[in-house]
């Protein structure tokens, strides 16, 4: 398979994920953005793995990434639920407790 389009795709996904994280006024949407970015990394790993088909290091890493992503999603959702319960909102902008 050609490798170049995958890189471009991963760059696109990362950027879109970043934009979603920064721009969207909804915590769950932010989580989705994070997932998108992690997937972009995964695509990269898998694509590079094609250069050394014997070792499969990339695939193993992608597995770890997935696991981390799942953990992150679980914890993140738990936090969001708690925040929603506490602040009655899921808009991250309205939670300004971190104000310096």
């Amino acid at each position, binding site marked *: 398979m050609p*490798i170049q389009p995958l*890189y471009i795709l991963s760059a696109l996904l990362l950027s879109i994920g970043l934009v979603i994280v*920064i721009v969207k006024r909804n915590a*769950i949407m932010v989580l989705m953005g994070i997932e*998108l970015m992690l997937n972009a990394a995964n695509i990269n790993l898998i694509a590079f793995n094609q250069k050394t088909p014997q070792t499969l290091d990339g695939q193993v890493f992608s597995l770890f990434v997935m696991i*981390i992503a799942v953990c992150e999603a679980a914890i993140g959702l738990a936090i969001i639920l708690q925040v929603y319960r506490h602040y009655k909102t899921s808009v991250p902008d309205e939670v300004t407790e971190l104000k310096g």
Partner: protein
Amino acid sequence: MSLLNFTFYFFCTMVAGSAITLLFVKNIFHAALALLSCLLGIAALFILCMAEFSAVAQILLYAGGVVVLLIFGIMLTNKSGAQPIAIGNTGIFGGVLVGGSLFFLMLFFVNKSIFILPIQKPSAESNTIKTIGVELLTDYVLPFEITGILLLAVLAGAATIAGFKPSKN
């Protein structure tokens, strides 16, 4: 164009399109669906890249786990019976600036260097799943174990956090 190539570009386009839809969609439930299609597309790309195990894990973990989890989150953070929350945007300028500049930065470097894959010989004899299993339990045994501990911690933590109720006083 071979069928394989067509399939590859089809899924590339599908992933990119879903991601862009995700960026512009207003309804958060539609966003979750767009994410699902994006993740499935990625899984298909994994298969095309000879990473069957990753693809399967992708489908299981993301489509089966994360997206369902997200939909549950949506449900829980929405008042029942109300319209799904329309997603507003904030700081569009900053986001587009950062995202765009990052994209073009990466695009620039991707285009600058030329990646050539080695001549692939079909490895029918090599079993990917077996190789991964061996790898995980030999070279990557430490991360594997740590991941297990992490998963345990996440399980406990998530349950604790989600189940936490503020005291009455």
